[in-house]
């Protein structure tokens, strides 16, 4: 399958991403992902390999674009800091990794839940303050918090 379709997949990804080296990386990841999945599904049984490749590649591409958007937001956020408190290069690299891990933990939480959860965990606001700031009830905040913790724990315990 790799021999037959890898060039096609790289070209397809390159059209979507407009960048050859990222496209090659993602194509590689796609095949790796499929090989890893081969335990549950025999590769030979795949009837329409290109359709299947596209589905896997698309999923990886969305993750990739998410990572890019995180990276951009991160770089922009560094500009917000006063000049004398910008962390060292080493700290920045570690910080970026931590942010990527946390972002993965928070997964697909809806925006409001995410915001409420982060206001509590990062800003240290009380549920009452969060409720006031977001214009929702304390009960809703409590529910959002439970949703946030559940999501994070699930991902962590699954790993």
């Amino acid at each position, binding site marked *: 399958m790799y021999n037959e379709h890898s060039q096609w997949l790289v070209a397809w990804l390159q059209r*979507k*991403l*407009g960048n050859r*080296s990222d496209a090659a990386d993602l194509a590689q990841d796609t095949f790796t992902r499929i090989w890893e999945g081969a335990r549950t599904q025999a590769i030979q049984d795949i009837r329409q390999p290109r359709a299947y490749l596209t589905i896997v590649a*698309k999923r990886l*591409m*969305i993750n990739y*674009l*998410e990572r890019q*958007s*995180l*990276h*951009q*937001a*991160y*770089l*922009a*956020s*560094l500009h*917000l*800091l006063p000049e004398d408190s910008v962390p060292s*290069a*080493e700290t*920045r*690299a*570690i*910080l*970026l*990794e*931590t*942010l990527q*891990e*946390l*972002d993965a*933990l*928070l997964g697909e939480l809806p*925006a409001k839940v*995410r*915001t409420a959860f*982060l*206001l*509590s*965990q*990062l*800003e*240290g606001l*009380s*549920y*009452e303050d969060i409720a006031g700031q977001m214009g929702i009830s304390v009960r809703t905040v*409590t529910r959002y*918090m*439970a949703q946030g*913790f*559940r999501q*994070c*724990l*699930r991902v*962590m*315990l*699954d790993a």
Partner: protein
Amino acid sequence: MPGVDTALLDEAVHWLTRKYASDFSAAEEAELQRWRKRSAAHERVWQCAEQLRSQMGTVPASIGMAVLARTRRRPDRRQVLRAAGLALVTPALGWLAYRNLPWQAWTADYRTATGERRSVTLADGSRIVLNTASALSARFDRETRLVRHYSGEILVETAHAGAPAALPFIVETDNGRMRALGTRFIVRMDGQDTTLSVLQGAVEITPRRSARSMVVRAGEQTRFDDTAFAPVRRLAEDADAWSQGVLYAHGMRLEDFLAELARYRPGVLQCDPGVADLRVSGAFHLDDTDRVLDLLARTLPVQVETRTRFWTRIARR
């Protein structure tokens, strides 16, 4: 879900949610401590909770909020892809916006990402090439053409035809102002100071906290801070090679070479002290820094150690 008991998860979520509530009491805390000791599984879940808290604790709140609570476009997946396509072709908005403004009040902001290089034409026809990780804003009015340079490195070619060319063209950094006297020059901001390299014509520098000015001529380079200038040096012939995406090295120390290369790639690029004094020569393409590193590994007794995508170290092989 393997390994997670739903009832246990529910309980852990309940305790966590309570723990951050403002009315969480000492009695509840004691009960929580008893709860986590009930079994190894309880303890394991709670360890995860603690780990989450310590990870959150290492992130400065302002950065964390800006990054993790960023607006994301994912109402549906197709839209994400379309948005990505758009980002690749977004034109210089500043340039488009200017067409609707009278000449007297033209402003525009330009910025490049790490590894990016970009050429822009200002409203008077002057051209600026922005090197990696650079930012500037241009403000033209009836009296001056002012370019405020915030970070990175720029190559300026001032226009010298038409009415606007009669107005002074000034580049300003944190350290002071440079007035172009019909010319082509490079301004680079590094940490505490500004380096000016003049390729054609001449430029007059006035540091921010100095009454003195100095004229730098073609083929000369100088560095200045808020108050003083460094002695003028002869300019290297390839000072503007970066505007063509090339880095020339003539027996450059590896450490200096890597420091230069690091400007063009995101993340950290470290040089082991044991190889810092090796010498590098050649012309290198800045658009693919990974390839440059591969090339080093093949031509010098060094190896490239990559710990994460954003952490690379060059050490002895």
